[in-house]
C-alpha cells in the first residue's frame, strides 16, 4: 500500500530554455515534518515551490499535494496548501484583521472579528496592530499575518519561500518558533532558504540543492550548523570545480 505524503515530487524536472531549473527531483514531505531546501539563487528552490503550487508546468515527472496530482488539478491542490512567500503581500488599505478576514472568506471561512484577532494573536501580531492599515506594517508583521492566513485556511501543508529573508533576528526567531509550532501540530512544511543556520534551527531534514538538483538530504537533528555548512560547500566544490572557502 503506497503512502500518501503531504508533498511528493517524483522525477520532477523543469527547464527554462537551455537552463535546467530542476532536474529529476524526488522528494517527500510527511505531516509533522519540516524540510528546508537549502541553496543559492538559481538552485531550483523556488521552482520546486512553484511546481507544487501549479504555477509552473513540469516538463517531466509529477508533483503531488496530499495525493492530488498538481498538473491535473492545480486549483484543488492549491486549496490544500498555504503559501508564504519571501514577502507576504497584503492589501495596504485594509487592516490586518480585514486582510485576514478577506483570505478567510476566500477560503470559504466566516470567522468573526474575535476569532480573527485570536488567530493574529496566535501568529504573534500585537493587538495594537490588528486594526492598523497593513500599509504601515513592517515585513515581520506582514509575515505574521501571512502565518495567520495559513492558520485560518487550516492548511496542513505549507510552502514557505524564503519567509525569514530580510527579517530582523528577533522577528525571524519568533517566526521560526511559529513554524515549529505548526510542525508540532502536524503540519508538513517545505521551506526554501539560503540561511544554513535557520534551516538547521527549523528543519527536520535539509535538502541541499545545486543547479536544479537535490544533491543531498540531511537529517538536521544529527548534524550541527558547521557540519551542514561544510557538506554544502563540498557539494558546491563538486558542482563548480573549485576549492571551497571554508569558514574558520
Amino acid at each position, binding site marked *: 500500500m503506497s503512502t500518501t505524503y503531504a508533498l511528493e515530487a517524483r522525477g520532477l524536472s523543469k527547464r527554462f530554455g537551455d537552463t535546467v531549473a530542476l532536474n529529476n527531483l524526488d522528494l517527500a514531505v510527511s505531516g509533522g515534518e519540516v524540510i528546508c531546501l537549502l541553496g543559492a539563487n538559481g538552485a531550483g528552490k523556488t521552482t520546486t515551490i512553484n511546481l507544487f503550487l501549479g504555477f509552473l508546468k513540469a516538463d517531466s515527472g509529477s508533483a503531488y499535494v496530499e495525493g492530488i496530482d498538481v498538473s491535473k488539478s492545480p486549483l484543488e491542490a492549491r486549496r490544500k496548501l498555504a503559501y508564504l512567500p519571501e514577502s507576504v*503581500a497584503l492589501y495596504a488599505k485594509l487592516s490586518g484583521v480585514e486582510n485576514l478576514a478577506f483570505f478567510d472568506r476566500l477560503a470559504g471561512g466566516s470567522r468573526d472579528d474575535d476569532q480573527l484577532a485570536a488567530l493574529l494573536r496566535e501568529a504573534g501580531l500585537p493587538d495594537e496592530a490588528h486594526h492598523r492599515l497593513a500599509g504601515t506594517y513592517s515585513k515581520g508583521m506582514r509575515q505574521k499575518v501571512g502565518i495567520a492566513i495559513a492558520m485560518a485556511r487550516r492548511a496542513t501543508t505549507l510552502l514557505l519561500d524564503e519567509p525569514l529573508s530580510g527579517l530582523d533576528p528577533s522577528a525571524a526567531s519568533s517566526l521560526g518558533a511559529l513554524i515549529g509550532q505548526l510542525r508540532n501540530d502536524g503540519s508538513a512544511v517545505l521551506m526554501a532558504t539560503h540561511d544554513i543556520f535557520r534551516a538547521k534551527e527549523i528543519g527536520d531534514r535539509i535538502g541541499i540543492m545545486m543547479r536544479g538538483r537535490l544533491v543531498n538530504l540531511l537529517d538536521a537533528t544529527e548534524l550541527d550548523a558547521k557540519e551542514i555548512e561544510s557538506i554544502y560547500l563540498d557539494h558546491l566544490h563538486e558542482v563548480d570545480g573549485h576549492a571551497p572557502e571554508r569558514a574558520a
Partner: protein
Amino acid sequence: MSEAIIRKDLTVLGRDSLLRALLAVTIVLVVVSVFTGLQRERVFVKEKTAALETDRSVWMNQGDRNPHSAAHFSRYAFRPASPIALLDPGTGDFAGLAIWMEAHYQDPAAFRRAEDGGELSRYVQLTPAFLVLTVAPLLVFVMLFGSIAGEREDRTLRQLLASGVDAGRFFRGKLFAGLRLTLGGFTAVFLPVAVLAALLTPADLTGDAIVRLFVMYLLFAAYLVVFVALAIGVSAIFRTRQSAFLALTAVWTMMAIVVPRFGSDIATSVHPQPDARDATVQLRAASDVYYRDTEMREQIEKDVLAEYGVATIEELPIDYGAYVLQFSEEMSEPLFDEFYNGLDARYAKQEAVVRTLSLFTPSIAAANLSRGVAGTDRIHQREFSKAAEAHRREMVQLLNEDYMYNADGAGYAYTAGTDLWAQFEDLDHQVPALGSIGRAYAIDALFMLVWLVAAIGFAYWSVRRAVTGEEAA
C-alpha cells in the same frame, strides 16, 4: 469566493480619498447640469408658451384682410418640448425652435439657441448626457486603473492565486466589484435626477417619456459597463498602476474625445454642409417655379377655362388669382420636399460616416442613441419640420380656397375675418413615440451590443492572460 473579492475591492476603493473627492466633484457637476438643463427647458417652454400666445393673439386679431395676405402674415410652428431633453439637449440648440409658416415658401427652422449662447457655450455643454458619455468613462478609469495592475504590482495577485482562486472567479470578482460601484453610483445619481426631471419638467410627462427615461437608464448603464470592462481589461495588461493609468488615459482621450470629434470633421469633409446662399437660391427657385414658366401658365389658364366651360377669367365662378396661388403652391411642394429630403439625406450621410467610427469607440453609438431617446436628434427635428410643413400647406390651402370660392369677383379686395382665422389652429405636434423611431437606431443599438460583448470578452481574455503570466512569473 467572488463575493469576497467584490467586498474587498469595494472597501479598498471606498478608502481612496482621491475617489471620494472625484465623487464629490461629480455630484456637484451633476447638480449643476441638471439645474442648467431644467432652466434651459423651462425658459424654452416659457418662451414658447408666451410666443405661441402672442402669435395666436396677433393672428386672431389681425382684423379683416385678404386671406392670401393673411397667409403671408402667417404664424409660427413651435417644436414640442421633450420632457427629458434636459438630460440630453442633443442637436436641439443648433436645430431651431420654431418654423415660420408662410405662403409660397417652406422656411427652415429658426431661433437656434446656440446662436444666442456665449462663446463659452460653444466649447462644452455641461449636460447630464455629457457627464455620462464623456466624463463618467474617465471616472471609471480613474477608479479602476489599479484593479488588476495594482494586484500585480503589489504581488497580491500571486497570493490570491496561491489561495486557490482561479481566473474565472478572479475576473468575476473584479468585474462585479467595478460594476457594483459604477452602476450603484450611477443609479444613485440617475434615479433622483430622473425623478426630478419627471416632477419638474415643464413639458408634459407622458407614458412615452417614462419609457424613454427607463431606456436612457439602460443605455447609460450599458455604456458604463463597457468602460468598466475596458478598464479591467487594460489594467490586466500592465504590471504597474502607472502604466495602466497612462494607457487608460490614452484610451479615454481617443474614445471619448478624439474619435467622435474626428468623425464629425471627416463627415463634414466628405459630405459638406450645403452653402447657405445656394440653399436660398434653390428654395426661391422652388417657390417661383410656376411664375417662371410662361408657357405653362398660359396652358393652365386654358385648362381652367375649359374645365369650367367659359371663355374668360372674369366668367369663372372662382377667383382665378386665388386658384393660381394654390396651384403654384402645389407645384412648389414637391420641389421643397426634394430640397429638404436632400438636406436630410445629406445629414444622414454625415451621421453614417460618423457611425462608421463606432468601430473604434462606443461613445458615438451611445451619443446617437442618447439623443434619439431624449428626442433631441435629427429624426425628431425632421418629424417636427414635416408636421410644420404639412400644417403650413393645410393653412395656405384653407386660406387660398376661401379666397378662391368666396371672393365673388372682388379679387384682392376680398377680405375674410376672425371666423376664418379661427379655423386655423395651432400646430399640435407631439414628440413621436420612441417605438416609432426605434428602427432608425438599430445599427447604433447593435454597435452598443457588440461593444458590450467585445469589452467583456476582452476583459476576460486579458485577466486570464494576466493570471497565467503571474503564475509563470
